[in-house]
């Protein structure tokens, strides 16, 4: 545990993280996890965070050491898509039982690793630590080391028992595990001046695939995406990229920063959400590559693609503007999306009446202020009851959020669109923006919302005609 404690402490001191750096040293030691209030609703644990960050690596066997609960509930829970291997969707766990807990689970774990390697022959096995084996003292790092020697394969311990902290901490610890055990362990067969890494992109609903064709057209190669649609060897060889784009700023900032430190790979933070952001990201990628020695003509070609794609997207969004202009939206989402989606929706003529900044950095917040001027309100962590009140009072036309807030929105009679992990529409890139606007249009104009907002006809002496169908 001491090494895990040290690792967690190091993550808290992450210099790339603006929040950490703004703190006094004593505060920083306490870490960025707010102590959870017992009895209050809380988000996922560190294990969950690590699992979602790494599970998109498609050819790895992800083996969860613990009782059934941890893997049972997280098996294939996210729509991270693969263009090839499907092993990552098969569920591997030691499924610890009473005997393991009494006598220790290390032997069981070793056998499980051996069986996974024998039966599936994956390029690597990721072994996830969970609360129970951590509590009884199973040393998964030692087991993985022994197994790697015996089986001649990378067996990577991901030491993230849920109790160490939040989901976000788990994201970062997952990144640390990649830095310690995977990145830089293999060499690519060839490199080009156009090689980049995309960090913090998980290819949910195949979003990366909406962006990739444009990079392909520009001749830019994704050496590794960490971790969407990634293969183990790509991640292992990712240290030879010329530049990197950091997508979800809070999740894997440590990976981007340390890769810059260790291998001199410059990175920028960007987003694929929103037309303006997508263009900015393409520009930044090209600029960084040119700075690192790629031919300067790349910049001109990038501008040409941007011009063409923007025009095409605008043209396809235009027909919706008449219907969406003036519609007011509330955003409950995290991190980058709190502002990148704002820009996107403004592009469709919508008004943002509020956005949550729970997972946003001060930088994110600045950007929001810039975008929405004084009109918008920023909200922090909200309890469902407060959220409900807010939705009722805000008199917005639609809410965009993750799956967990959907049901609160519904009770507040608010049309709702899922823009988080479990959604099924890809909203990235120029293509994704058109899709987002289409989905917003569908959500806003679904006839059930009239019904949701109306009381049962016998409960009101107002006729349906007199009832305001869309909140004015």
């Amino acid at each position: 545990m001491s090494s895990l404690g040290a690792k967690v402490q190091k993550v808290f001191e992450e210099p790339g993280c603006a929040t950490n750096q703004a703190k006094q040293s004593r505060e920083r030691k306490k870490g960025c996890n707010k102590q959870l209030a017992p009895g209050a609703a809380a988000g996922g644990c560190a294990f969950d965070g690590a699992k979602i960050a790494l599970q998109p690596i498609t050819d790895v066997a992800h083996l969860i050491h613990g009782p059934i609960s941890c893997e049972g509930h997280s098996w294939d829970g996210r729509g991270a898509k693969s263009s090839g291997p499907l092993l990552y969707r098969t569920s591997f766990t030691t499924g610890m039982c009473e005997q393991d807990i009494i006598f220790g689970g290390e032997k069981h774990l070793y056998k499980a690793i051996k069986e996974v390697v024998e039966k599936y022959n994956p390029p690597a096995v990721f072994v996830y630590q969970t609360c129970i084996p951590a509590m009884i003292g199973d040393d998964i790092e030692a087991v993985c080391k022994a197994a790697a020697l015996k089986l001649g394969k990378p067996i990577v311990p991901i030491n993230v028992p849920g109790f160490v902290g939040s989901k976000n901490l788990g994201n970062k610890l997952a990144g640390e595990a990649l830095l310690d055990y995977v990145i830089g362990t293999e060499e690519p067969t060839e490199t080009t001046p156009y090689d980049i890494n995309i960090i913090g992109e998980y290819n949910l609903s195949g979003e990366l695939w909406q962006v990739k064709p444009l990079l392909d057209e520009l001749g830019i190669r994704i050496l590794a995406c960490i971790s969407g649609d990634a293969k183990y060897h790509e991640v292992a060889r990712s240290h030879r990229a010329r530049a990197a784009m950091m997508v979800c700023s809070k999740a894997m900032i440590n990976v981007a920063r340390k890769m810059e430190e260790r291998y001199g790979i410059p990175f920028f933070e960007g987003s694929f959400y929103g037309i303006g952001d997508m263009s900015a990201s393409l520009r930044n990628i090209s600029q960084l590559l040119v700075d690192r020695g790629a031919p300067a003509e790349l910049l001109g070609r990038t501008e040409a693609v941007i011009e063409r794609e923007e025009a095409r997207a605008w043209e396809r969004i235009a027909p919706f503007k008449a219907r969406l202009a003036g519609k007011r939206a509330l955003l409950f989402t995290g991190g980058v999306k709190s502002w990148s989606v704002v820009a996107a929706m403004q592009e469709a003529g919508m008004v943002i009446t509020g956005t949550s900044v729970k997972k946003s950095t001060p930088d994110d917040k600045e950007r929001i202020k810039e975008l929405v001027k004084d009109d918008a309100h920023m909200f922090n962590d909200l309890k469902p009851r407060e959220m409900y009140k807010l939705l009722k009072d805000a008199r917005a036309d639609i809410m965009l959020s993750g799956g967990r807030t959907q049901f609160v929105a519904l009770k507040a009679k608010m049309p709702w669109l899922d823009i988080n992990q479990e959604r099924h529409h890809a909203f990235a890139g120029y293509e994704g923006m058109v899709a987002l606007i289409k989905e917003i249009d569908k959500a806003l104009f679904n006839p059930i919302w009239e019904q949701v907002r109306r009381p049962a006809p016998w409960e009101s002496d107002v006729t349906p005609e007199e009832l305001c169908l869309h909140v004015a």
Partner: protein
Amino acid sequence: MSQDAEKVIDHFELFRGPEYTEMFVNKKCMFENPVAAEELERVSEWTKSADYREKNFAREALTVNPAKACQPLGAVFAALGFERTLPFVHGSQGCVAYYRSHFSRHFKEPTSAVSSSMTEDAAVFGGLNNMIEGLANSYSLYKPKMIAVSTTCMAEVIGDDLNAFIKNAKEKESVPLDLDVPFAHTPAFVGSHVTGYDNALKGIIEHFWDGKAGTAPKLERQPNGKLNFIGGFDGYTVGNMREIKRLFDLMGVEYTILGDNSDVWDTPGDGQFRMYDGGTTLEDAANAIHASATISMQEFCTDKTLNLIEGKGQEVIAFNHPVGVEGTDRFLMEVSRLSGRPIPAAITKERGRLVDAIADSSAHIHGKKFAIYGDPDLTLGLAGFLLELGAEPVHILSTNGGNSWKEKAEALLAGSPFGKGCHVYPGKDLWHMRSLLFTEPVDFLIGNTYGKFLERDTKTPLIRIGFPIFDRHHHHRSPVWGYQGGLNVLVKILDRIFDHMDQTTNDVSKTDYSFDIIR
């Protein structure tokens, strides 16, 4: 391998073996003078074209794959809704065998009905003797409390007069004078099963209310504040009736169900054969005249019946098989108004749950295009529900729907922006639907079991809602009326949408990157 007595292969596998596939090819080539494969393909493709559609819709005489059944089927349905009632169909016995198997295949229950088994001599000399003998036999064999007589085409063509025949039979002591033997003329060459239901139900009610064919005084109506409820010809009658009774009981409404088939088609497997079970008692049927109003769930099934009832001074209200929030709202509010009973909080809560469920899933149904076919009332109810969900009906077809149905459907569609692109097809059949699905494709098709051929040909996923449903079991046990019923229909539609999503993403290593656990 060929069939082997030691290990006989059943039809699923048998003809897939090489010896059979080869044999079929040879047989075709050598003896069947086949057209070239390309020609076959060309014609097959042509049947999917707009050109073919035009010719298809120009059909005048030929009906191909009709989506309707005949009057006596509906008459048997109506008769079975009454206590210890034996449906007696005057005409040829083959027809009656059809009705019995048709219902049994749908409800997975034995269905009792008899015929007068008319043969050639009866067709020539009239069926009176068959009626006399038939009533006597069925009365002594099956001990019914009532025999409800209807007719097949055969009796209708020769013009047998049921009223006179039954009187004659009673005079000849074929059955006791006081046995209730209501009747209805139900020629299959007029209307469809919904007409037959209407005629038979009207016949039964008229019998009790208007002096039992001259053997008793006509009843005097003395309004008692109760409500009558008529379900109509309904493939979901088992689940629906129970749901309606539950709702009425929750509201504290005093009611009489006129025609309750929910027990006779859902008898328990406890070792006892119940030829009759449940049903409206004959006493209740007679007393129903005193009700303040009658509600019919299916207008096109109860046209004449409601006329009769209205003539007795009752208020009559007819719905078109309401499904979903607004349909159920209207239904319950009428029940509340007519009975003077408020809608209790428990039902308001059920309503909220349905609204909630629809909103939860709205994104998956919104904008999906549907084709619907079926009985006139059912198609109207389903179309209304689809509009409520934000789905877009594109083709609505009813073989037994006429012009008044068409007008109703068009008015319904005009009331919603989601009904804009929809066309209504009265009197058309499933071969017309085939052309529609090829030339103006939709995402999903709603219809009965016969829709599976359309699904096979056009690859339009079929959602089975309607009558008959032969190839899926027990659907009739779940209601489609009330808010709970709306929920069931919603789930049925969603299940198919998600099944389809799974089926189009489950090719290993090809499409299964979208084969997701969470939908």
